[in-house]
């Protein structure tokens, strides 16, 4: 197995984690069109995404859009995705993105899942090793909460406590000496925000209010993250995303649930007679992820060049043994991935070709990393 760059989503159940991943992959595909590089999904990932996309499509074909029609995730799922040369599937940069049932964030709930503690530990390990933490936010809950009791219900509905705990662990791991120089990006991704924007078929004028509310409600989490990261910077990106785009919230209810707390129900309508999603701003996430790789590249290359006068073989051997981000970067920078691709008795010409493709993939990653963000998206630090 080639080492992969890791990323993870963090959010409670029904917030939109799985839908967000689907939207990101769809938009990346479009961004890469015509570059000689494609985004390739392993078979199971491809199936998972396809099933999810079909469910989204079905939801749009219903006369009344059910805001929660999609089946929740039941087990942990690793999305194995690579940016890959069209000409040679061995020439690629792989990513491994973790999705899981949001309810696993709740420690009490975990007790009731067979093997839940062990599975969640594995998820946590992946999260801690991730260069990017992707935090989907239910914008409709933040924006529709008006009365004091409604606002009082927000932290529970969005499980701030549990989300903050995981973000804290992520940030404190990023702060460890061995991870200092690695990239670390936190993406705040409001979803279900079609109503508040006027740039994707709607007339909303609430972009500023949404930004303000996200900053307010997620301020404590950002403080925790910055507080943990004493030895380094963590990049924060604000990226409000439309995964459907063609629906619009009409009415929100705050019914009292059986445990006495306020719940939240959203009623949507489909704009016009649209039947396919119109994704907006999701590509920014892949852009940010590629920036992590490119940044890492620069650092790793510095190390390789600095070591040139010294001992190559030792450096390469060490990189190969290294786990985590630097091991992964080292694998692609040192040429080991090229050697692996070339190690089956290839001719000099074939090896040159592999090197060229490697350059091509690298150029594409750099181009993706340099793609301008959608105007909705803002770096917050």
């Amino acid at each position, binding site marked *: 197995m080639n080492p992969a760059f890791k990323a993870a989503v963090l959010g409670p159940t029904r917030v939109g984690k799985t839908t967000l991943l689907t939207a990101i992959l769809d938009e990346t595909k479009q961004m890469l069109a015509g570059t000689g590089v494609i985004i390739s999904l392993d*078979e199971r990932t491809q*199936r998972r995404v396809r099933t999810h996309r079909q469910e989204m499509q079905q939801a749009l074909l219903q006369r009344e859009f059910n805001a*929660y029609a999609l089946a929740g995730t039941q*087990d942990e799922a690793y999305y194995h995705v690579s940016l890959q040369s069209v000409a040679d599937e061995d020439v690629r940069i792989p990513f491994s993105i973790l999705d899981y049932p949001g309810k696993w964030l709740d420690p009490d709930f975990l007790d009731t899942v067979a093997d839940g503690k062990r599975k969640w530990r594995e998820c946590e390990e992946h999260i801690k090793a991730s260069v990017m933490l992707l935090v989907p936010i239910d914008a409709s809950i933040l924006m529709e909460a008006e009365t004091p009791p409604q606002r009082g219900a927000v932290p529970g509905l969005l499980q701030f406590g549990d989300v903050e705990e995981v973000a804290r662990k992520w940030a404190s791991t990023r702060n460890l000496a061995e991870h200092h120089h690695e990239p670390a990006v936190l993406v705040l991704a409001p979803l279900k925000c079609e109503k508040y924007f006027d740039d994707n078929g709607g007339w909303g004028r609430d972009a500023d209010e949404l930004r303000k509310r996200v900053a307010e409600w997620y301020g404590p989490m950002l403080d925790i993250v910055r507080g943990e990261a004493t030895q380094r910077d963590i990049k924060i990106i604000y990226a409000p995303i439309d995964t459907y785009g063609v629906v619009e919230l009409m009415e929100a209810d705050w019914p009292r649930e059986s445990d006495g707390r306020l719940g939240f129900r959203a009623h949507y309508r489909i704009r016009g007679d649209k039947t396919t999603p119109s994704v907006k701003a999701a590509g920014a996430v892949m852009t940010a992820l590629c920036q992590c790789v490119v940044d890492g590249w620069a650092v790793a*290359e510095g190390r390789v060049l600095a070591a040139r006068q010294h001992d190559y073989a030792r450096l390469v051997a060490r990189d190969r043994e290294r786990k985590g981000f630097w091991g992964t970067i080292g694998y692609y920078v040192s040429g080991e991935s090229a050697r692996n691709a070339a190690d089956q008795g290839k001719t000099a010409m074939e090896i040159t070709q592999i090197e060229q493709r490697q350059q091509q993939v690298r150029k594409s990653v750099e181009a993706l990393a340099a793609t301008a963000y959608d105007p909705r998206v803002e770096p917050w630090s």
Partner: protein
Amino acid sequence: MTAPAYLMTRGRPRENRYDYQFIGAVPPARWWDAVTKHVQTTQREIVVARHEGGVGVYVTGVPSERRDAGGTPIRYTLVLDDLRDDPVLLQRIAALAWSADGYERLGEQLDKEFDADRIDAIIRGDEPAEDVPARTAAMLDSALEPAASLGDDPAGSWVGGVKDRDARRAFLARVTRLAAAEAEGWAFTSQAFGTLRGAHEAAADLRAPVAIMLLDPDGTSSIQEIAPGKGPALVKERRSRIPLIVGLSLAAVALILAIVWIMRSSA
């Protein structure tokens, strides 16, 4: 008297304690766990396996009419731990694999047997539930189609598509042979992959004979053998590293130099 049928579903309220769980009684062992990464547990899938406690069947993705408080449709999962004594029931359950109507009917019957208020009350602990597995087992007979005829089950591991009649009959024959202890391992449907390569990966991971019914195959549906150890999944398998490291060390260093040079000149 049929074996108990463990029933998993969720209640309507939003709170986590109403989430998916076995109602009334929990199967003593999660013998199906090893296969869950090779199926889509939220979709229609069927798994049959020999395990320490017998020959079990796991049926997931059975639709309920119920919706949870947020509006998400609710599903049922059924587990029968041991059907060695009732191979016909096992065949009838396995045949659900190619019957969307069969799934619907099973879901309707379950909804009728256990109404929404009752499930919520059971989960809250307000109503007794010990009889749920027995009642679920008892209603199966009326919810399922009569048994279909069996076909030839090739020995060893194979994969076939649901549209192929021979594959369907072979699948039924395989589950029957599993029940009779004439075959080992697993028989299951999958929507998680659709290629021979995906089937090879599943077989390699499970380390046991498998009969896999692809519900959505990419390409041919007819039965194909899964030869142990080699297959299309493995054509890219690397040769042993050791002779390579020795043989290529010089070439490798030269290559690194070249790549570093390229990278430097492009930086």
